[in-house]
């Protein structure tokens, strides 16, 4: 057997392993209510129930509002994250200032702090600012550059840009802010996409922060609504899986659309410095 065939077999096995939970989720979502987790794929050929999706969306409540809330939080988080993390990454890569490296290490060190550790003080801060039950606690940490890993990714990417480019831009009359905007950011498209996708997934699927900060049903997000399917006595697994599939769909679409740039970004981050 040639190496090429072996490679294909390995790829198909891996792809199947990753696809299995998705296929299982879709399969369960189409089974008759009450079938539970035991139904087989073969049953679907003569007894599929796509109406489960309509029922699931109805059970979630005001779906358009849930979707709108989640989109608002996600879009603001992505915009904030890209803006502040790329700025910080540029500064750590291209601006020389006293204590720069020590500060960078300090920023990286915060990655070791689990989010739950700072949850209570953070909640108290947001409560004292009167921001509880608003989207601010979900979005502000991203807008304030609260993702050291993304700062690290941007810094690594900006370090790969030739120093002559920034020097030429300085001579052409640019300050650092203009260099960041006109030269560094357009060249960092793969990293923007990579960080954008990571942030999208984190914000879209975030359950913890909405659970802690959002109380009003009109501010609820999709992840909170999804959790409401899980009840002790009457969990309709088929509806829960149908709702999960709907919530998951945008993640898959975003990934497949931006796949090429995402991979380039990850490769650069993994291979440089």
């Amino acid at each position, binding site marked *: 057997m040639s190496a090429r065939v072996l490679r294909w077999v390995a790829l198909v096995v891996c792809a199947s392993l990753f696809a299995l939970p998705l296929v299982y989720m879709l399969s369960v979502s189409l089974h008759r209510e009450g079938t539970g987790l035991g139904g087989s794929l073969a049953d679907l050929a003569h007894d599929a129930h796509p109406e489960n999706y309509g029922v699931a969306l109805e059970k979630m409540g005001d779906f358009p509002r849930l979707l709108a809330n989640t989109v608002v939080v996600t879009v603001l988080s992505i915009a904030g994250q890209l803006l502040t993390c790329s700025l910080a990454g540029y500064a750590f890569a291209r601006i020389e200032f006293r204590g720069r490296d020590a500060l960078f290490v300090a920023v990286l060190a915060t990655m070791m702090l689990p989010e739950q550790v700072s949850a209570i003080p953070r909640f108290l801060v947001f409560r004292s600012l009167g921001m509880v039950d608003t989207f601010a606690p979900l979005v502000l940490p991203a807008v304030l550059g609260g993702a050291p890993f993304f700062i690290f990714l941007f810094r690594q990417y900006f370090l790969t840009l*030739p120093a*002559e*480019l920034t*020097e*030429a*831009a*300085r*001579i*052409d*009359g*640019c*300050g650092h802010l*203009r260099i960041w905007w*006109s*030269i560094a950011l*357009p*060249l960092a498209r793969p990293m923007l996409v990579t960080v954008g996708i990571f942030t999208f997934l984190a914000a879209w699927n975030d359950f913890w922060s909405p659970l802690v900060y959002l109380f009003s049903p009109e501010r609820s997000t999709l992840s909170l609504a999804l959790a409401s399917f899980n009840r002790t006595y009457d969990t309709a697994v088929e509806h829960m899986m149908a709702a999960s599939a709907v919530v998951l769909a945008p993640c898959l679409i975003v990934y497949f659309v931006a796949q090429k740039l995402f991979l380039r970004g990850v490769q650069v981050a993994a291979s440089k410095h």
Partner: protein
Amino acid sequence: MARLEIDGISKHFGASRVLEPLSLCVENGEFLVILGPSGCGKSTLLRIVAGLIEASSGELRLDGQRIDDLAPAERDVAMVFQNYALYPHMSVRDNIGFPLRVAGVSHTETAARVAETARTLGLDALLERKPAALSGGQMQRVALGRALIRRPRLFLFDEPLSNLDAKLRDELRHEIGALHSLTQTTTLYVTHDQVEAMTLGSRIALLEGGRLHQVGRPLEVFSRPATSFVAAFLGSPPMNLLRGEVRSGAFELGGSRITGAPVESGEVVLGLRPHEVEFGSSGAAARVEGVERLGHQTLARLSIGAQHAVVCREDLESLAPGQTVHLCFAPRAAHWFDARDGRRL
């Protein structure tokens, strides 16, 4: 046009001294070439003038005005880099027009000046292309355009032709010379290529180990090198430097006593250009180690005792390795240098 004064500029990185205190003046409209081997500090000097790095000491003045405390953009200089430094995501048009856009020049004027610059450099047909779709020569032309369009007071070139092949290098060298004749902008040009220095420079400044050896017109530097370093660096093949002892006013070489040394006694270095040495029936004896026939001329590699020399002539057809020859030269062909510090005697 402007007059640049470099006054006592030095640079050190920690304990490592890259530039010794150096003073130099580039006159209005002059094309001054800074020539030297890799690591001699020439690019560092250029970057200090551009404002990209800070000098450790000294002052820079452009038309009498201090510029060493100004940001690069405020110095009114334009720079062309060795690696072109074109913005990869911008078209040729945007690259050339970028400095004007940053300066807030109107779209109409920017467009007109980009068109004019592109016409001057023969880039009209390439304006919509991205740098990745250009050849090395075209990229350097775009870099020239980006510098030209600003109409700066001072042009800085950092080895702009080093990444090009020989043919393109010749072509662009000629173009840079023509552009300077056209604009008459004061220019500081850094290179390690003596052909570029000799053909482009109104004057040449030779730098080695962060130290300025000589400043002068190309032919003057070539014909009267101030140090043995300058003598060896300029000319191809380089000048032969033969170390020996002067006793009673005569230099002893290959069993022969050569008169004309400017000192009575002591160790000196005799410099002889390869094309100014002839073979005769008497004179310093040398053994032919190798013969390289280049078509229009022949190079003879010689050994004179433990020292080596090269002679370059058009009339050496019969020469063969192993032969013994006698070197003779006109007294004015001899350059004498102090053996200790290399200074011309």
